[in-house]
């Protein structure tokens, strides 16, 4: 734990990416493969799920310090992180002795065994462990226990550090880090091994991502150099057919195979050694359903088959990454597209995302304006000669989304943010007028500059009407233009409407609160 905590601190104490990579490479070069495997696990943002009930750490902190729960909440709202709050409060506990146990032993012989214990035993163990650790180590342990450990490095930087340690190309390491892998010494040794290994057959390729189109269309050259498709509003996924099995990976590298039995059934007819890139879409009568329909499918894990009848899905394929067991990523899109069309001939559960043909950019702009009626998010533009790259690179693939819905809403509640926004009031609830009252319609956190956040923070502190723990009810004065992607009827929201991806587009200092929009205006936007 000592060395891993030093790595945590080193990453925390610099804003330079080169120094972060160097700190990780130093760790990998000297840690045992078993420790390094766990370090990669945490560095890539993975966490131990369902380790402890989330409130347990708070209860133990109260138990040790005698503080009441309202005080913990006050502290939490200032610190913005549960584990850190506990670590700061528990700073009163003396440290006895020094920790010499390696990271892997901490996790395998201690942390993971907690799952088998009752809460009293868990508490006794954890409090005893905290006594062995210094302040920084306690923070790391508590973050591991609460599932909140983040080390503030991107996957790309971890890949660079491992590649440096192994002396291998970053593309090799990026591929080996996709999907699921065990946190074992053997796995880490394979990760950094120069030999081509018989990699796990379920493993996806790194996704190639499109960048939002910001420049004028004229900068893109001839419209005929581009493949144009609808931008589907579903779940981006890779469908893998290898060695007789089917695997479906979401872009968040989550295995979602079992949620979509009809896709698995259809994919079983694909030849072995096929990897497709596409979109899981709720789809009926030849047109996509709104994203909210698909959410019902994701939400209910139990009655998969019943849900499959209620909300049918398709896999809308737009690329083929592997065919006949060959990696096609270096082939031009045009050639991949031909292969794709030869693989999927029919329009069943597996279908090919149709190319939209146009002779001018103006025609495309016209087409894009019909997106909302078609339940799509806009257009995708992909250069016909583009390879299948890694990550988000500007130039070859663009997403040309339609403008969001907008509405002017009034700030009614504010509470402190977490992480980097700790102690600042950055999380807002907005309302719309209905019968002379403001009805909450959305929470939004993003879209303001740091200067605007500081300004609104000062304003809120001076214009708080009431406080409920960390939540402040503010005077209804400030109007913000909110943007969101879509909306759906909802019985769980007081407004009767759920909005998707709400964010602040503009602070309408020019608009008095009385002139903000009404709930009826929002209702009229319902599809």
């Amino acid at each position, binding site marked *: 734990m000592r060395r891993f905590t030093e790595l945590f601190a080193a990453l*925390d*104490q*610099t*804003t330079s990416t080169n120094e972060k990579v160097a700190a990780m490479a130093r760790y990998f070069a000297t840690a045992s493969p078993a420790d390094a495997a766990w370090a990669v696990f945490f560095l890539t943002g993975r966490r131990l799920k369902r380790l402890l009930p989330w409130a347990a750490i708070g209860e133990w902190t109260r138990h040790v*310090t005698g*503080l*009441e729960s*309202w*005080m913990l909440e*006050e*502290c939490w709202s*200032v*610190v*913005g*992180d549960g584990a*850190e*709050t506990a670590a*700061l*409060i528990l*700073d*009163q506990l003396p440290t006895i002795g020094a920790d010499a146990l390696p990271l892997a032993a901490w996790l395998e012989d201690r942390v993971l065994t907690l799952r088998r214990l009752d809460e009293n035993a868990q508490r006794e163990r954890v409090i005893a462990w905290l006594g062995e650790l210094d302040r920084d180590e306690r923070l790391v342990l508590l973050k591991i226990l609460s599932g909140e450990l983040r080390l503030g490095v991107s996957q790309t930087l971890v890949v660079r550090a491992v590649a440096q340690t192994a002396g291998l190309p970053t593309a090799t390491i990026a591929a080996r880090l996709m999907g699921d892998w065990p946190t074992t010494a053997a796995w880490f040794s394979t990760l950094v091994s120069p030999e081509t290994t018989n990699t796990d057959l379920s493993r996806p390729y790194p996704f190639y991502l499109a960048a939002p189109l910001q420049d004028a269309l004229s900068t893109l050259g001839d419209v005929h150099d581009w493949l144009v498709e609808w931008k589907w509003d579903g779940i981006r996924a890779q469908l893998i057919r290898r060695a007789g099995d089917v695997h479906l990976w979401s872009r968040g590298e989550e295995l979602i195979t079992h949620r979509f039995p009809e896709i698995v059934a259809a994919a079983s007819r694909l030849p072995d050694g096929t990897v497709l890139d596409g979109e899981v879409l709720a789809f009926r009568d030849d047109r996509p359903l709104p994203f909210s329909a698909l959410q019902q499918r994701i939400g209910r894990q139990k009655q998969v088959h019943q849900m499959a009848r209620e909300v049918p899905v398709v896999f809308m394929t737009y690329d083929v990454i592997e065919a006949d067991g060959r990696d096609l990523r270096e082939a031009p899109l045009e050639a991949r597209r031909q292969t794709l069309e030869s693989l999927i001939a029919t329009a069943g559960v597996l279908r090919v995302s149709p190319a939209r043909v146009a002779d001018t950019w103006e025609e495309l702009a016209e087409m894009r304006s019909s997106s909302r009626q078609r339940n799509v998010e806009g257009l995708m533009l992909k250069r016909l000669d583009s390879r299948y790259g890694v990550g988000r690179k500007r130039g070859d693939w663009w997403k040309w989304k339609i403008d969001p819905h907008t509405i002017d809403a009034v700030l009614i509640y504010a509470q402190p943010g*977490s*992480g*980097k*926004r*700790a*102690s*600042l009031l950055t999380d807002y609830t907005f309302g719309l007028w209905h019968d002379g009252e403001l009805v909450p319609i959305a929470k939004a956190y993003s879209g303001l500059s740091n200067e605007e956040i500081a300004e609104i923070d000062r304003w809120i502190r001076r214009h708080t009407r009431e*406080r409920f723990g960390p939540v402040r009810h503010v005077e209804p004065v400030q109007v913000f233009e909110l943007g969101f992607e879509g909306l759906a009827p909802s019985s769980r929201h007081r407004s009767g409407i759920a909005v998707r991806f709400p964010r602040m587009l503009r602070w309408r200092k020019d608009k008095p609160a009385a002139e903000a929009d009404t709930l009826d205006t929002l209702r009229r936007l319902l599809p």
Partner: protein
Amino acid sequence: MLQETADGLYCPAGDFYIDPWGSVARALITHAHGDHARSGSAAYLCAEPCAPLLRRRFGSEALVETRAYGEPISLGSTRVSFHPAGHVLGSAQIRIEGPDGVWVISGDYKRAPDPTCPAFEPIPCDTFITESTFGLPIFYWDPGAFLIGEILAWWDANRQSGRASLLFCYTLGKAQRILAELARLTDRRVLVHGAMISMIDAYRDAGIQMLATAPLIELARGTSCAGELILAPLMARGTPWMRRLGEFSDAFASGTMRIRGVRRQRNVDRGFVLSDHADWPALLQTVRDVGATRVLTTHGHPEPLARYLATQGLESGVIRTAWEGEAAEQGD
């Protein structure tokens, strides 16, 4: 004894205000930070070592009367005296003895030793008005000597890798405390931002022993800053002044750095949790030491501290002031 008014805390029995934010006839000042000492009042009264700092802030024409620590003065039907608060040079608690018993207004204070000012003296009282800048049980300070050691180790490590060390800190109090504490460990010269000079001079005039300093802008053209320690206020961040530094590591010395998220907001490499305010145990200790039956809390986290004290059987409450603690000192 004291009323909350639009101009600040007012004592009718003595006809004076304490650290008023409006312009008043007579202002008693606890210390020279901007949120406590505001210009525009007709007459000021403060502890003796505070006066030179006030004059630097307000100009020499301001009417500033002084009293030695502990020396009483009669104002109306009250007797008033100033007592060391241990916050910065010249900082004082104000004791008021009047028809409502003895009141003490703490001003800003700390209990940890500081070579630049006399230590806080607990003054027995009936009503104690305490600051609560760090009034939550997450704020525990390491000893100052340990933190100064950390700052020196950071400076040394940067010297070894040929970088400058840019340490942001408040221009009144924190900068001088760091210079005085470092003087026990090294005799290297420290570079400072121009905004620091006036208050450092004031401390030297008061006889405080500190490391030698020189303004960064007076460094000869072409001289590298590698290995130097530079003190600057936060407001210097991102200004053209920074270009002179070359490659550097930056840090901020403040109690707020105790919270990782706040340090990350500041986007500095290091945060040194060095504060001139009382931490949680020091606040509670002080309340015990003064033996007050009633405690009023102000600025920072007044509500939780007052509520906590109530659970300990004390009469407590919150008073609203425009004093801001560390938030206001950033521009100082």
